[in-house]
């Protein structure tokens, strides 16, 4: 087990980074406990990657302080690099090398760690050991990138959008591998714009927007903090029988109403009281219901409530 247990694994204070006139990270604070999987969730351009790269010692912050595993980049870069596993967003590994050659190369940079073939087996690429990187699928490439991050047996793993662009099966496979690493008690900082990924993998989540953390907590806490735990989505009405949306706000238990692409979304505290009331209201308005769905509130709903935008807008 890592020796840093119960200590702070990462602490970033008042980070600020501006590119030309865009402020990518704006006075951000982060505190990660050793052994936790922490997610930075936010839309593209929120400043997640810049934040992570500052923590990884790849980008110099304009101001602020970072400490990783109790060390600073300015004085302990060489020791620190030995203990971190890093996977960057869209790195293309050399296509002409085989999987084994690639992992063996990365292995040679680290003082400790398992043999290349062992790490390859851990990410389930044994059968592809001697295949060229150029012949791998997207999911296999991401698992190879993970292998290159794991090859030094790190105490701290940075994953920047590890499953972006992958199909659902490949994503689940990668999640299993990340969970396996997490189960060994080491620390993960993960960025994603998939709310399901953050909900599944992360112990705590910081929601980022415009370079700032706008909400922080466990996925459950964040969802609970939006006051409503259930979402009701329906489509109703027609040109002749328009729906009176304002009337819906008066239904007991409805916290918020918004319309989206012709559908209406209600945040409600309890389905079993609000849904019958909704149906009664629609009957009163004499508006036919064409579709009705309910789901538990997700981090996506939290983000929309906080910013009025979707995570994957733009």
């Amino acid at each position: 087990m890592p020796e840093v247990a119960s200590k702070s694994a990462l602490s970033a204070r008042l980070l600020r980074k501006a590119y030309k006139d865009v402020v990518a990270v704006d006075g951000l604070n982060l505190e990660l406990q050793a052994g936790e999987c922490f997610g930075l969730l936010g839309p593209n351009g929120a400043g997640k990657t810049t934040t992570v790269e500052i923590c990884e010692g790849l980008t110099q912050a304009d101001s602020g302080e970072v400490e990783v595993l109790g060390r600073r980049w300015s004085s302990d870069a060489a020791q620190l690099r030995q203990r971190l596993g890093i996977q960057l967003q869209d790195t293309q590994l050399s296509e002409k090398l085989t999987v084994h050659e690639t992992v063996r190369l990365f292995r040679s940079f680290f003082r400790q760690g398992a043999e290349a073939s062992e790490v390859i087996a851990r990410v389930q690429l044994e059968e592809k050991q001697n295949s060229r990187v150029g012949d791998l699928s997207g999911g296999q490439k991401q698992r190879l990138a993970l292998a290159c991050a794991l090859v030094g047996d790190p105490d701290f793993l940075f994953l920047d959008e590890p499953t972006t662009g992958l199909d659902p099966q490949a994503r689940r496979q990668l999640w299993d591998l990340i969970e396996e690493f997490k189960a060994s008690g080491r620390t993960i900082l993960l960025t994603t714009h998939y709310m399901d990924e953050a909900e599944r993998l992360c112990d705590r989540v910081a929601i980022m927007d415009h370079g700032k953390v706008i909400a922080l907590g466990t996925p459950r806490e964040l969802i609970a903090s939006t006051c409503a735990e259930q979402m009701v989505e329906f489509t109703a009405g027609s040109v002749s029988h328009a729906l009176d949306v304002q009337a819906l706000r008066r239904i007991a238990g409805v916290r918020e109403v918004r319309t989206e692409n012709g559908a209406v979304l209600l945040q409600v505290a309890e389905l079993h009281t609000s849904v019958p009331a909704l149906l009664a209201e629609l009957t009163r308005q004499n508006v036919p219901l064409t579709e009705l769905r309910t789901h538990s509130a997700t981090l996506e709903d939290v983000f929309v409530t906080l910013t009025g935008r979707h995570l994957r807008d733009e």
Partner: protein
Amino acid sequence: MSDNTIPAVRAGVGEKKSPRENSLANHPLVQLTLVRFLEFIREPEALFWVFVFPVLLAAGLGIAFRNRPPEVLTIAAVTPELAQSLRQEKLLAVEQLDLQAAQEALRTGKVALLAVPGSGGAVEYRYDDTNPEGRAARLLADRAIQRAAGRVDPVATTDQLMREAGSRYIDFLIPGLLGMNLMGSAIWSMGFAIVDARRKKLLKRLVASPMPRAYYLLSFLLSRILLLVVEVGVLVGFGALLFHVPVRGSLFDLGVVCLLSSLSFSALGLLLASRARTIEAASGLMNVVMMPMWIASGVFFSSQKFPDVMQPVIKALPLTAVIDALRANMLQGSNLAQMAPQVGIIAFWLLVCFALALRIFRWR
């Protein structure tokens, strides 16, 4: 299961470090160099341009400019007396034709010159003075006519024919091509590999690992040395076997010059690739730098053909120094001390380019 997989592996690390794992093969510099080498040999186009193309070029030019036996020039004379006099010259084949046929033959290029009797025993030569054959025929024909008429040359002369290996065009060409190839392969392979790694963010990924940065740059130089042996061997061997191009200096000195040249061009390639983010930008830059040297540094013809005011600049170019040193070694048998000025210029470029590249190199 997942709970204990990684700790088990982790705990096992100590014992699992077999002797092989600590061996030289797993040194990062060895791994980086190996990877460079593998990437290169898995690129068929690169293999063609570095190994096959120079040989094809040398073969083509060698055949085009091969030494032919001295040519006999065909000329025409319109009188038997003139023909008789002209036949004294061994290098002329004389045809006796009537005037009309002779003029037709001259016009169509069958004969290089036409000798016609003028008034009072004079001889008139008709030929095209823009045609080298015509001018040569004029000299030979006149000599034959004058000697036949009793001229005696006041100075006795003898001819010694220099047709030995070492002074032919192919002998001049092979060191030139070798120099050009050293430059091209070093700059292209260095430039493209680095810019490509930067574009793919592989450079950034490597920097995020504990890889020592100097090893990365060093691995390029080391892999160049591995390929250099083949590169130089193929071209010099080809010249020696097929055209008997000599290597009169010591092979060791030749090796030193080639190695230093390759390192120097690699440093130049590193400098050219130190900031570019796209292949297009880098290849434009590389062409701008290499083009003047292809033309001015004496690959295909002597750099002395350029005006005197340009000579100091041309002499300072790295490719000029490399080619001059290679020719001095291969053709004149010069040793390193005799090549000191060239070696100095090459070393100067190596140091300046490498120092500058390290300062401005963009790692991400």
